[in-house]
């Protein structure tokens, strides 16, 4: 039975990643396009893009675990929240510099998630989803009451040190983080490890039958997912400047993450990014025309229509469009 280390060793050497020149060209164009945005759009749009970038990071993180392996996690805001609260507590209560608090937040998220959620990976399907949902809800209830001197209770923690100021700087930070996470996830998913994770989502028994340890693979996916969620949560907390339990552990946060992945296209890298940008921008574009809660109904209806038309999301619509174009040329 090849172990996880062996699988990692094989993939780290680059064997089987099937990288082609056009991959690098497309990534370079994508990165350049994103970095050029401040020259093309206004500050208001940049602010919206910052939120989209952070949502994309959370969505990619969720997709690594749930989109690939099929283990639907309803507890992802729990991981994001651990990252956010750890760096907030360390910087505001103990005077840690952010250079130290963010890496610690990532480690704490991985460790905290490992203790709480990893045992749940031994159960399947809706049971796993329900356990993770319960963990998130528990966190929502506990944060305000356990050590409110540290967590700030329901009013949270204010005056977190800002990493940058201004729309452009905030955008560059968020987009660089998102691009780094996306590139890392893309490379990871092109390895045999990524293939094995995808295979678990298709048929876990077959993967186990082929001699791979699915528990280890799932644990690995979970740790990577938690690390990205913790990283994103920590940066996001410093961007917001204030964190409260409602902003992180609310069920709406979970819905946003999952809908971003499903609308964009689960099991892909660009899908969650497209989904996150689509969601955030649609809501903001509707704001001047529908300033109240009506815009959420319109947005929900559009999302539902897209999902009904193509359950695999916008990525699948784009891919089928490209295929048709190619077919028309030939």
């Amino acid at each position, binding site marked *: 039975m090849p172990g996880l280390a062996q699988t990692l060793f094989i993939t780290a050497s680059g064997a089987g990643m099937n990288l082609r020149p056009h991959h690098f060209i497309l990534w370079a164009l994508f990165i350049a396009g994103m970095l050029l945005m401040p020259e093309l759009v*206004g*500050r*208001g*749009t*940049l*602010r*919206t893009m910052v*939120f989209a970038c952070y949502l994309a990071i959370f969505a990619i993180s969720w997709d690594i675990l749930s989109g690939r392996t099929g283990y639907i996690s309803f507890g992802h805001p729990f991981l994001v929240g651990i990252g956010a609260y750890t760096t907030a507590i360390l910087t505001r209560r103990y005077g840690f510099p952010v250079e130290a608090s963010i890496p610690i937040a990532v480690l704490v998220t991985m460790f905290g998630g490992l203790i709480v959620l990893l045992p749940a990976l031994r159960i399947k399907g809706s049971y796993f989803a329900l356990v993770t949902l319960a963990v998130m809800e528990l966190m929502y*209830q506990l944060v*305000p*009451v356990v050590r*409110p001197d540290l967590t700030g*209770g*329901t*009013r*949270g923690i*204010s*005056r*977190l040190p*800002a990493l940058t*100021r*201004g*729309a452009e700087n905030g955008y560059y930070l968020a987009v660089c983080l998102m691009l780094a996470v996306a590139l890392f996830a893309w490379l990871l998913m092109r390895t045999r490890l990524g293939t094995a994770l995808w295979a678990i989502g298709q048929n876990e028994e077959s993967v186990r039958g082929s001699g791979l340890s699915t528990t280890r693979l799932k644990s690995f996916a979970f740790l990577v997912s938690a690390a990205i969620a913790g990283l994103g949560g920590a940066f996001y907390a410093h961007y*917001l*400047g*204030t964190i*409260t339990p*409602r*902003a992180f552990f*609310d069920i*709406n*946060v979970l819905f946003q993450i999952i809908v971003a992945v499903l609308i964009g296209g689960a099991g892909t890298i660009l899908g969650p990014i497209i989904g996150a940008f689509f969601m955030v921008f649609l809501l*903001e574009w509707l*704001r001047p025309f529908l*300033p*109240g*809660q009506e815009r*959420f109904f319109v947005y929900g209806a559009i999302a539902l229509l897209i999902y009904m038309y193509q359950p695999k999301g916008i990525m699948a619509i784009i891919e089928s469009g490209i295929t048709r174009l190619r077919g028309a040329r030939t």
Partner: protein
Amino acid sequence: MTLKYGIAASVAATLLATTAIADIKVGFIGSLSSDTGLSTLRGAEMAIEELNAAGGVMGEQITLVTADTGEDVTEGVKAYEYLAETEEVDFVISGSIDDVSLGWLPRMQEFQIPTLDTWTSYIGIIDQVIEEPDLMAPYFMNIASDEALATLYINFGADVLKAKMGWESVVILAEDTAFGEAITGLVTEALGPVAGIETKEIITYDIGTVDFAPLFSKAQASGADFIYQVSSVNSQVISSQYVKLQVPMAMTGVNVSALGMEYWEDTGGAGGGISTLSPIPSVGFELDPVSAKFVADYQAKYTSRPVMPHFNGFNAYHGLKQAMAAAEEAGGFGDVKAWNAAMLKQDLKLEKDGKLWLRYGFWQHGEVEEVTGRTYPQNARFDLTAPYDDAQPSMVVIQWKEDGTVGVVYPFEYANTEFEVPSWVK
């Protein structure tokens, strides 16, 4: 072609006309679907209409744009960014609840846009004003902060709950929100020691709770003399169940739904006996002529709920006019320090029957309030000592009677009815 040019010319003319008259832009931030948010929005709308009708400010007309928060913290941050970066407003008026205000506060500090908070009463924000006056120069809160609200409420505990009713112990029934936590802390830390009322138990409940019967049973089992409820979300549920179940012990406290005239309808008439702390002016509060005219104009203009503006509607109406007057003195909103200095000087005194009734002014930096012994810079001015001749009290206690009427029961100088327990409580 002619049609195209015609449309283009019309659009251009409209845009130019809009630009020519829309020189001062006010942004509203708050919930567009709550009575609280709508109160602030409508108060601001009425003030703007009156100012525009009188020629505007500095010869310019004022326009209002809205940004809905949906009472969500993250949406609040996006809303403030939208107002600042996309709409590029000159001034922000807020009807946000506590944690939403805390969410957008870092954005206000970054953009330095003069901002008036009409609902949030969190003393921690005033503490920030004290600690970082330059960074917080654009911020004003024209509702008495929660510490001032609580201080006077403690007097109600001593003067009425203890002295008049003879109650000596309380069980707190509080929702699990920032508001619930803050009020619970103040009651347990202050009500007990000052008013001599012992806290027997604190029962916290989820804001989604629909069946309060077990919680009322638990409260009764505590052996306390009365229940202190702290409820700002879905408050009509707890109060209507209290009435329908005829819980045999008295209940007072803070119930936000009881602050509006819709309370009686929302509870299906099952709201009698409920009393709550309320900032001023509240329902049941006698109004001075200026405030009465505001309410009459409001009711002539708006037919949907809230039929009577909540206190923050009054705050928005007077506060926005004061912010514009300060801008006129400071030469606009651009120089935040100059605007801050001019805003601190704003002082509107409203009298009723020859007595100072309401005052819309602000505490100055370094000015110490005598009862609490602390400062409240850029916070609404209030008075904690009878006969309240410097300003209005920080709060009143109102009570809904079983016949659907409502009145003020405390402080005695503002009272128009007496505090009493419901008929089913012996």
